[in-house]
């Protein structure tokens, strides 16, 4: 597993009106790694994810995935390249069942194959019994699990997770942690935003710290936790 960068963000600038959300952010995510992204509120974490997923277009800079430019592609092309994501606030289609939520985003498969894949994934996150429940009736934690399963419908190489551990109880946090570790062992590269230092320390090999739209530090989690610039940004 060399140090081949799967995802490369190079000098990305994103402005919203007068606000500089990303100010020349650069970073790399190594293939097969678990990389964490931390930063204070408003530092540009979610904007960076939005740019990577193609929802926002960077004003400057470039993003490459497996050596191919991402920043000129549509979200659906990016999904097809093997990059999937979950949202900070879950975005399930509330009036569809859990199973339908997964099948709706399937690409290219026959309906029967899509259903089977969806069921396997629901099995994996242990919520297969909820497959016919309306997504709008699920608890927040259950919705988080459905989102993870849905993101895996693309069989992604890289999974972007926007605060997968926020707002849920420690038991479910550990459960999700277990699933993520299993995915990682299965070869999926994970790039996740979170504030839970406990979890980042446990699972991440590399942590990137972002502040005011710039990546200010990157390295092993213990190092990042002691980095004076990171401390200054957070406290």
């Amino acid at each position: 597993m060399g140090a081949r960068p799967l995802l490369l963000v190079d000098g990305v600038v994103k402005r919203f009106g007068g606000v500089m959300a990303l100010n020349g952010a650069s970073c790399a995510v190594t293939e097969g790694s678990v990389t964490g992204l931390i930063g204070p509120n408003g530092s540009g974490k979610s904007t960076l994810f939005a740019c990577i997923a193609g929802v926002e277009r960077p004003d400057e800079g470039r993003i490459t995935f497996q050596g191919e430019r991402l920043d000129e592609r549509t979200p659906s092309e990016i999904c097809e390249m093997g990059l999937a994501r979950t949202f900070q606030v879950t975005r399930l289609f509330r009036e569809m069942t859990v199973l339908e939520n997964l099948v709706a985003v399937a690409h290219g498969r026959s309906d029967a194959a899509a259903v089977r894949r969806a069921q396997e994934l629901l099995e994996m996150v242990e919520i297969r019994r909820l497959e016919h429940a309306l997504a709008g009736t699920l608890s927040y934690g259950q919705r988080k699990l459905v989102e993870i399963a849905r993101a895996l419908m693309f069989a992604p190489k890289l999974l972007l997770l926007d605060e997968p551990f926020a707002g849920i109880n420690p038991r479910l946090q550990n459960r999700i942690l277990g699933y993520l570790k299993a995915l990682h062992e299965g070869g999926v590269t994970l790039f996740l935003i979170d504030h839970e230092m406990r979890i980042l320390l446990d699972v991440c090999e590399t942590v990137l710290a972002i502040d005011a739209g710039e990546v200010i530090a990157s390295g092993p989690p213990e190092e990042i936790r002691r980095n004076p610039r990171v401390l200054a940004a957070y406290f």
Partner: protein
Amino acid sequence: MTAWILGGALVAAAAVLPLVTASYLVSFTIQLFLFVVLAYSWNVISGYTGYTSFGHTSFFGIGAYGATLMMLHWKLPWLLACAGGGLLAVAVALPLGVVMLRLRGSFFAIGMFGLARVFEAVAFGWADLTRGGTGLYLPPAYDLRPLYYALGVLALGMVLLTWRLDNSRFGLQLLAIREDEDGAEALGIKTTRLKVRAFVLSAVGPGVSGGFYAVYLSFIDPPTAFSPATELTTIAMVLFGGMGTVLGPLVGAAVLSVLYEGLWARFPQVYLGAGGVIIAAVVLLMPRGVMAVAMRRGWLPHGRGTLRRLAARPAAPAEA
């Protein structure tokens, strides 16, 4: 299973109706078929996709004028001319969809309403072609039965198409757009392409049936072709029956057609206002329509049965 038997019986009854009964009922059923087609078409873009259109009479009017002109100038047989009217509506809908679907919510609704008014104004103004407010006349159709069957087949086709849609991934993706378009896009659903496809699909029925309507009346003028009352009635039917459901438009069209017919006969003074009152009442009391109430109470199964059946297949690992 019972649904198929019931449906078959309904189709059989409709098929023999013109052979056994007087022209009044045939005439009424022609109008019912017409509204079934319009309601199902509107349901595709506004019910499933969530883009509420107040201007789908545009396609009805374009189809009506297109077919009439093809009959008058090219001497095409009426059935072919109506198909031509449908094609014309599709040809207009494609570029229009690309532009209009950039608008969302009320902006789309109002934009579509404005478009229908533009088309109506063009029909008035382009007098060389349309003879403006005088309208165009066709030789009267003495035997309504061919028209009855043509519209009946179209109506049945729309019901079956919607059933297919409801059970397909395309249908699910349209529902995803209705619920959270940005989310759907971020999840890789090709929203623009799907929306335009739904929009064009929803123009076919009005386009073809517009021609049928002109044949039925043997006449077409701008207020008839682009009538806001037709639009409002269609919307009221789908709202009443249930937006984004397979049977909602059918139930809505049947119930409201009978109701309107009764009102028109007995209380002509309130007939026109009834559509507005029904829309207001439905939105307040059962915003998802009769079908949604029936599904919630368990009288009817929820839609999208094909997925459920696929999910129940033993090929998938069992769950404890």
